[in-house]
């Protein structure tokens, strides 16, 4: 439904130009989360927005082929595991939960460097979890693989007229 309307060369070309910059910016936001505004959550949301842009411009099929919803949910769990695992590693080393200074002997670096790396690991975990969770929500809400009977019930004549407007 969403995919049929906006089959448009201009939208496709602009998306093709914009998406790499959006994704690089999202990685920048994640990587610089501990000394500038931003962080794992915002970077993950921007990554999910880039995926949604591909979804809007090219339809559901190319996105779902690269990142299936089941793989997305698995990656979401892995992201939470990275976050919790960093905290538990600190806990097992004798410190508090997410006490990054205890990671210094494991990583073999000085304590300030260990704090920086620990926060970076947590940011990566949060970014992965947020990106895949947002992606799953977007696919569930806007995807065309919802239950077919609900899909048929929603295509009332009024709705069909509204959808025909942009294509005309």
């Amino acid at each position, binding site marked *: 439904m969403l995919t049929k309307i906006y089959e448009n060369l201009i939208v496709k070309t602009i998306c093709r130009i914009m998406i790499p910059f959006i994704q690089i910016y999202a990685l920048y936001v994640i990587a610089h989360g501990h000394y500038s505004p931003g962080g794992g959550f915002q970077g993950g949301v921007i990554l999910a*927005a880039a995926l949604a842009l591909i979804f809007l411009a090219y339809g559901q099929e190319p996105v779902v082929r690269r990142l299936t919803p089941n793989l997305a949910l698995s990656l979401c769990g892995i992201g939470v595991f990275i976050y919790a695992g960093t905290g538990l590693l600190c806990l097992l080393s004798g410190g508090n939960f997410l006490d990054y200074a205890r990671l210094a002997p494991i990583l073999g670096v000085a304590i300030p460097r260990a704090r920086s790396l620990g926060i970076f690991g947590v940011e990566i975990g949060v970014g992965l979890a947020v990106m895949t969770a947002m992606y799953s929500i977007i696919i569930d809400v*806007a995807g065309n693989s919802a239950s077919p009977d609900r899909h048929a019930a929603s295509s009332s004549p009024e709705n069909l007229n509204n959808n025909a407007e942009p294509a005309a």
Partner: protein
Amino acid sequence: MIWQLDLLILVFVIICALAAINIKDLLSAVIILGAYSFLMCLLWAEMGAVDVAFTEASVAAAVSTILFVGAVLKTTRRSKD
């Protein structure tokens, strides 16, 4: 923090909020809600909360607008009331 700028953005925020409530076309309401979120983001940034402004811009102005557009396209575009 310039209070004149604060006041100007606040007036625009209130105008956008009232327009989003009162308009009948739901797709237009979604777009106005996106403008509202962006103005809120400007207000946060102007008041010094850059991190909150970042979250507002990425979540409210981008992702929730997409979700609302998806919901409007799956249901109906005209409001009944």
